[in-house]
């Protein structure tokens, strides 16, 4: 592990410390609900790095490359909270450009909602003292987008969500372009900061041979709740303000009427339909 750049020693070489938060998620499109047995069907569901986190990893790798081209340095640490098998996701993160990784894993973390998850991750990050934390905009299993902003509040960093481009980055601040519903906002954020990124920001690379080798031999430490000094009443189920009380299948949609024929006929049928629907 890196020991953390000590900002009080002026002659020390500046290294931008980046942490990328990743989550191991099931390939959600394969998770289905069986309405007959009222259960989740998870057979054959593989796990993967949350797709949005791949953009976060790639952006960290690109920042590191850009700094290297200027004769400056960056380090990338992938951080995940999850069960012991989430280590696989962290190895994949190393193959994609992270220098090292930390797994936050403890029985006591389990059952955490977004409040308790962001608290635990923030405790882990506090030990690493990064200058910049990059997260995906949301995870595709929970889809909440709450953990990134939550981490920033817990660790008391500045933040910017939905980042589509990093305009500039120096020792004191990062200037980002945020993707909003009606356009882009250009925003300057003081470091240390947490940013969450959208898909538009880059195109993730595939693992390099060297990356794969690094991933294979990397030693990934596991930090428990005690290691990150996270009190039990603020993590896992006890620390979570929300509770899931029911899980059920969404209303099933069935295909309706179907039409085939010449394009002109179909266009006429469509006009009729749009009039019936009171659209035109």
């Amino acid at each position, binding site marked *: 592990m890196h020991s953390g750049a000590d900002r009080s020693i002026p002659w020390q070489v500046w290294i931008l410390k980046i942490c990328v938060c990743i989550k191991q998620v099931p390939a959600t*499109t394969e998770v289905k609900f069986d309405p007959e047995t009222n259960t989740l069907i998870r057979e054959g569901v593989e796990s993967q790095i949350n797709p949005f986190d791949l953009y976060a990893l790639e952006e960290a790798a690109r920042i590191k490359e850009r700094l290297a081209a200027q004769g400056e340095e960056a380090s990338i640490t992938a951080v995940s909270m999850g069960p012991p098998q989430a280590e696989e996701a962290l190895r994949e993160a190393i193959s994609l450009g992270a220098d090292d990784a930390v797994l936050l894993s403890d029985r006591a973390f389990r059952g955490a909602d977004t409040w308790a998850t962001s608290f635990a991750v923030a405790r882990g990050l506090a030990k690493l003292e990064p200058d910049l934390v990059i997260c995906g905009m949301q995870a595709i299993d929970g889809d909440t987008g709450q953990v990134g902003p939550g981490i920033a509040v817990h660790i008391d960093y500045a933040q910017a969500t939905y980042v589509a481009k990093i305009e500039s980055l120096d020792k004191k601040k990062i200037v980002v372009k945020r993707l909003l519903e009606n356009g882009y906002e250009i925003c300057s954020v003081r470091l240390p900061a947490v940013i969450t990124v959208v898909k538009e920001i880059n195109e993730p690379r595939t693992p390099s041979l060297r990356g794969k080798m690094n991933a294979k031999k990397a030693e990934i430490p596991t930090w428990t709740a005690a290691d990150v000094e996270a009190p039990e009443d603020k993590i896992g189920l006890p620390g979570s303000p929300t509770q899931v009380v029911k899980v059920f299948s969404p209303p099933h949609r069935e295909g309706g009427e179907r039409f085939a024929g010449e394009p002109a006929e179909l266009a006429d049928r469509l006009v009729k339909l749009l009039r019936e629907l009171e659209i035109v």
Partner: protein
Amino acid sequence: MAIRVIEDKCNGCGLCVKACPTAAIEVDPKKLAIIDLDLCSYCGSCVSACRFRAIAIDIEKQAKEDLSQYSGVWVFGEQFRGKIAPVVFELIGIGRQLADDRKSELAVVVLGDKLDNAAAELSEFPLDKVYLCEAPELAQYDGERYARVLTDVIRERKPEIMLAGATTTGRSFLSQVAIRVYTGLTADCTGLAIGEDDGLLYQTRPAYGGNIMATILCPYTRPQMATVRHKVFPTSPKRSNGSKAEIVRLNAKPQLLSSRSEILDFIEQCEATVNIVEADVIVSGGRGIQDPSNFAIIEDLAKALGGAVGASRAAVDAGWIPYCHQVGQTGKTVCPKLYIACGISGAVQHQAGMSSSDTIIAINKDPDAPIFQLASFGFVGDCLEIVPLLTKKIRALRGEA
């Protein structure tokens, strides 16, 4: 905290085994479910799945303060340049129902600067109060300032429920407030109701790309907070009797107005045809469009119908149209009155973003395309031929050239 199997209720049916997303449960030879605590994530799926109430999660938890001091339903009055976001009027509608069920007040809280017009507009809706927090520093949304100010107001006035639109602003902002207040926040709700027995807010939301729905409670802390998707609830009607809601001005404490961020510029890019989450009609194009120049026919139809332009991931990844148009798991989730999918096969990832549209029309050459399995009306044919004809006929109908 503990999870346990109640032995005399469990008959070893194995429903919980199927339900467990972490494969932590097995049924032993004596027909009893055994939970491996090293694998269990306490998600509660097995508790929901068990028909015999044989699994229980015990949480020794209680409220740390008297929750009865909290009352009222608040809606975050998101504004941009003084104009209230359309989703706010949808939240006023459902907020009124929730407040009536709780026999409490409904208020909208707006943060910004020079909000007289916004306040006047809001006061015509069936609210009890419009709270205004005005300061030059609050003119534009800044997560840090907004979260500090709203947290302060919540602590002082103690609303029981706090709702915001699931917009980029609403989702980022309430996340910060929920952490500061130490309360629960449920994202992207599609259903909200007050429990008859317990008076709690039952918050229902899709998860796993819309494959499952979950109902969530926030029993021990207040306010109960939720972000709500666009177009899920109808826009509230205005007051019928011409009366006005009371406008209450709140002071934003100067020490709360500092921030580590600064907005340098705003580039308005997404005109009406782009803001797909607010559109009533969306015309979407996919791989079947074949060429970026053909997207013009999708835009023309959208324009003729007064709708917005959507796209599948395939079309966005091919570079035919910008990402802000993408509908689906890694794009936007939309819920328009009418969704017209043109040349979109309808992969599950796309369905995750549009399957809750009121009406779905699919136009696709391939009769076996998965999109037809959920389309309310399917048209088997080439969208490149059909769509321009359709646009022409609609224009002719309107007497346009």
